[in-house]
């Protein structure tokens, strides 16, 4: 994997298009997984993923070869994806659903709530975990997903979050205990009904 990453940055430095194609081939799945788990919606993950890679390409065009060679591709891409996600959340909160025209509403339906297909998926254990994850506050969800879905080290999570390693560890830890509490509540609720 390390050897592969090294080749990838060399390729990026030599030939942007070939390097970017390899970058997409190797890392598209991880970026999609990250966005799917933080957003909880396949349609949003798809859109934001496209957006993140488009930004990455535009940025790479402006980088000199030495900088492309020095890149840590996965952490760098995840930083972009996390920023794209934060921007998306921020602009959505500025455009609340209530002021939307009725004509535009159908475009948003697939994104707002889990659809029938998502609900069917949620029936199993994995679905319950995913549902609990989407109820986690956004500032815990990103580090938890980075650490436990994408499988990054705490150092990488800290780098993406722009905080010290200790803070990243604390965020993941609090996120995980919240997640566990959400799941326990849910189980108790099921027993009660």
């Amino acid at each position, binding site marked *: 994997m390390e050897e592969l990453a090294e080749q990838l940055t060399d390729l990026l430095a030599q030939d942007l298009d070939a390097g970017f*194609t390899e970058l997409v*081939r190797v890392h598209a799945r991880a970026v999609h*997984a990250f966005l799917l788990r933080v957003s909880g919606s396949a349609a949003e993950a798809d859109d934001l993923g496209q957006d993140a890679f488009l930004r990455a*390409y535009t940025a790479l065009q402006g980088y000199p070869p030495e900088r492309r060679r020095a890149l840590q591709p996965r952490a760098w891409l995840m930083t972009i994806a996390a920023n794209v996600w934060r921007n998306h959340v921020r602009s959505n909160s500025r455009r609340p659903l209530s002021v939307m025209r009725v004509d535009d509403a159908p475009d948003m339906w697939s994104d707002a709530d889990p659809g029938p297909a998502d609900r069917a998926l949620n029936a199993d254990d994995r679905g319950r975990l995913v549902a609990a994850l989407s109820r986690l506050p956004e500032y815990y969800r990103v580090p938890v997903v980075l650490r436990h879905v994408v499988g990054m080290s705490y150092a990488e999570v800290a780098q993406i979050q722009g905080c010290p390693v*200790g803070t990243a560890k604390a965020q993941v830890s609090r996120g995980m205990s919240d997640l566990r509490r959400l799941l326990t509540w849910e189980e108790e609720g099921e027993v009660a009904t």
Partner: protein
Amino acid sequence: MSGGDHNQLPASQIGSDSPGELGEPPAPVDFALRILQRVGIPRDRYDTYVRLDTAAGGLFVAFTPELVTGAVLATGGLTAERFEELHRSRTGRSAIPTGTPLPGLLTALRTGRVRRLSLDLGPVDALEARVLRAVQTIPAGQLRPLSWLTREAALPPARGADAVLNVLAHNPFVVLVPCHRVTYEHGAPCDAAYLPAAGDALRSAEGVDMAEVHQWSRSGAVFLGSDTTHIYCHPTCANARRITPAHRVPFTNAREARRAGYRACKSCRPVAA
């Protein structure tokens, strides 16, 4: 960092009681492809690939818009990621998953008529290319011995069989270059590039009756003639299979057939015409 040890606990717990629960969910199959299209990477900079079903299990096929550039059976736990890496190391091109196979590919696989499929052989020498092209001309449901291949590919007879076997073992287009239709002289299949089960599955899907082939190889006969037309063929040739049992005349070699006044079939070419 006093909480370091404390913080390790939740992770290991989740990891142990729900392994892979938070693992990577599958991305849409053409997610990467749409990124490349949106960014505007020229189509000739990368290959796309599909996973198709064959009698021998899944088959990864990579292609450009015109040519097939590689095919690998998904046996032995070969994952899509591994196939991408293999393709990259063999051809130096990135393979991006897609949902749309190359036009004509599905038909070729279904009917077994792979002769007209356009292949980009990639980094192979002239000898390998000649062998692969010759294998491609073996019709579906028929078998040809190594000596036939050596002759069709115009190889020097001295090193023929070994060279052919070596090329077949590294066949970069399994199933599409149908090396399961190649046998040793006595009729047993080579299967240089397949596990035996995969080769058998592919042959029986094409309607090759292996019991009959074994019977032939045990009897020592290599060619089959018809006493009405006085033409002799490879036993699996479409023309040989039409001979009614009463008129079948087996031969153990071409000279014997010639002495009996028979000529070689022009479609399966048992000897150089």
